[in-house]
């Protein structure tokens, strides 16, 4: 058999491909950007120009991040498509969904197309999520069909949630018509005026105004009702409360197309850790209570939560080193997602690696309909991640590929290290 030009053999690893229902010792041959063969160790028939030794490593479909702020166009001092995707590659992500709250807001075919141009220097696949309404002002819907054609994989107004019932209903109807999910950042902003962190004892002690958990759950309850009425695909972004999960579970039980994601920081940290007005712990939704985190762990284990997404939100140091109530919300998260999942979910909560791969790869790929991704089945696109689940390392935010380093996980000792990230058959990151 001839050697394919652009070919790579991944030898000796443990393949975990939940979508393809494959788990075990397999070699994977990549040729011309596709998965050419998956065969028991040493049994691959084709020849490869190159090979990677994957002994003691997990070989999985590349991670898909449903929620990333790449800040371009407009806020390149925080991040660029090039720097953000470099951080993604270092974190094992082969595809990222770019949120529309850029400057200007991505509500147009032009910006959607611009973000995907080669000149942006993306290292991994960038799938724009376009604005649900013009300017994310919550009034007039964007042109979903045209945006879909230009490459948008979903719609959302993210940080500026759609509150108006009839606008939300219409947004669901329109996204259902073209078969893409509508993503909602669930926050009733009428209940969160001036809110800085989760409502509770810590907020009271610090004299900070709260973002109450009901502000999230109420919107999710309404949206699930609307999803029922419209039969649309509702995707709830960064779920943080037990109340919201309850509503999502109800929707799933009713067999509605309701999916959701959770961030690594919400399954790792608690609101009581907001000490000393450290703005690296300031994000929206905020860190919640222990009971909320318990509900998140249970939902991650039993499938009520579909995906892990980072909500990677870079901000410059000078923007974050200010009074707590003047600091922007958000933290970077692409480089620590897998390690937090392994450290917290796998090692502490005993969630199997297969489930973690599902949460990071196959499920998010399916949520935004990325055909040929999120699996290592023969013929699929060769987006692959290799990681060592046992490797212990220390995260040093100064070494980040992101332009920003606003993370509370700086200096944390973590388990689970990305060894290689392969996009379309090409190695884009190697530890």
């Amino acid at each position, binding site marked *: 058999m001839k050697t394919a030009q652009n070919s790579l053999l991944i030898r000796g690893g443990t393949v975990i491909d939940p979508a393809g229902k494959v788990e075990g010792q397999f070699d994977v041959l990549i040729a011309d950007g596709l998965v050419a063969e998956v065969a028991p160790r040493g049994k691959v028939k084709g020849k490869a120009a190159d090979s990677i030794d994957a002994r003691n490593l997990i070989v999985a479909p590349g991670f898909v991040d449903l929620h990333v702020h790449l800040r371009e166009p407009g806020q390149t001092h925080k991040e660029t498509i090039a720097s953000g995707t470099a951080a993604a590659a270092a974190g094992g992500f082969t595809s990222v969904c770019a949120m529309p709250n850029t400057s200007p807001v991505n509500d147009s075919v032009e910006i959607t197309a611009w973000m995907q141009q080669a000149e942006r220097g993306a290292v991994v696949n960038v799938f724009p999520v376009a604005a649900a309404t013009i300017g994310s002002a919550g009034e007039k819907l964007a042109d979903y069909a045209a945006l879909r054609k230009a490459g948008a994989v979903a719609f959302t107004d993210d940080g500026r949630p759609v509150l108006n019932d009839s606008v939300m209903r219409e947004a669901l109807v329109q996204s259902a018509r073209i078969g893409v999910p509508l993503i909602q950042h669930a926050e009733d902003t009428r209940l969160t005026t001036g809110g800085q962190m989760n409502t509770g004892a810590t907020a*009271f002690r610090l004299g900070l105004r709260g973002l109450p958990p009901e502000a999230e759950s109420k919107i999710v309850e309404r949206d699930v009702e609307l999803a029922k009425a419209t039969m649309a695909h509702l995707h709830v972004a960064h779920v943080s409360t037990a109340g919201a999960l309850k509503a999502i579970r109800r929707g799933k039980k009713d067999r509605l197309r309701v999916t959701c994601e959770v961030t690594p920081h919400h399954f790792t940290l608690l609101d009581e850790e907001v000490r000393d007005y450290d703005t690296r712990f300031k994000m929206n939704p905020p860190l919640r209570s222990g009971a909320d985190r318990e509900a998140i762990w249970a939902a991650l284990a039993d499938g009520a939560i579909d995906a892990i997404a980072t909500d990677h939100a870079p901000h410059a140091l000078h923007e974050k080193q200010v009074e707590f109530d003047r600091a922007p919300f958000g933290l970077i998260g692409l480089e620590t997602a897998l390690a937090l999942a392994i450290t917290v979910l796998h090692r502490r909560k005993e969630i199997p690696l297969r489930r973690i791969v599902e949460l990071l790869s196959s499920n998010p790929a399916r949520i935004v309909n990325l055909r040929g991704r999120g699996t290592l089945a023969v013929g699929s696109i060769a987006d692959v991640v290799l990681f060592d689940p046992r490797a212990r390392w220390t995260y040093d935010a100064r070494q980040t590929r992101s332009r920003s380093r606003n993370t509370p996980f700086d200096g944390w000792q973590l388990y689970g290290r990305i060894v290689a990230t392969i996009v379309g058959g090409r190695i884009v990151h190697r530890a």
Partner: protein
Amino acid sequence: MQNKDKRSLLGIELLPTEDIVSILRLSRRFQRSRPKPLFKDKRIALLFYEASTRTRISFEFAAKVLGATTTLVHASASSIEKGESLLDTGYTITALGADVIIIRHPSSGAPHVLAKHVQIPVINAGDGMHEHPSQALLDAYTIQQRKKKLDGLRVAIVGDIFHSRVARSEVLLLSRFGCRICLCGPPELAPEVATTLAPGVTVTRNIGEALRGADVVMVLRIQKERLASLQLNVDEYIANFQLTAERLRMAKRDVILMHPGPIIRGMELSGDLADMPQSTILDQVHNGVAVRMAILARALGIKI
């Protein structure tokens, strides 16, 4: 030189109890002795992002009487208005040779952010809804003066607890001395969560329950500027929670009536109450100078 973090006064929460005791002891000495130029050649910057009468004048007098040079930086009449950040303002004041920064700021935690970055001690003169440690210290001083002790007193705090930095510092300080503290107000202003602040704290909606057996009654102003979206029915508030001479009779016979000011007569307390003999409102203001002398001496590392 002592570590600047130990000389800063950011809040009662971070202040060791022995430091509270020594500040109160030092305050007594300042109040009894003739002022000496102990702070000669010291530069003290008052960085005020928010309006203040009592606290500012009190700190300024305390500093000047003991010979320090002071300067007032007000947010609306400085580079802050041009957009200079808190940290850059702090670095500038430090570079100008200040020995201490006294800061008042509408954002909770602003002094903590500043103290983390500048190399000189920072004194919190009130930060947002968080803490007002010098007020709590001068109130403790005043209580001690009148009651000859702090330990085990029954204290009622009536009014806007939620938005009050004074309330938080007061509760944190008095609970260290085993005081039983009852907070009283409508749910929006005296939320149940306030009981988590310290041991021995209760919340009631019934002013009679709060006042009964109280040694100290502290009244707090309704902070209109911080109510945000909250709708408060003023008539209802007055009917249920205004402190009147009649209501005060439910407390102990030798009760003292305190208020950190500014007082709004006819709102949180009835018009004439502030002038009654039980009232310590002006004692509090008066004592504030000596207490702030002690706070500054501690910050400057000056022993007397």
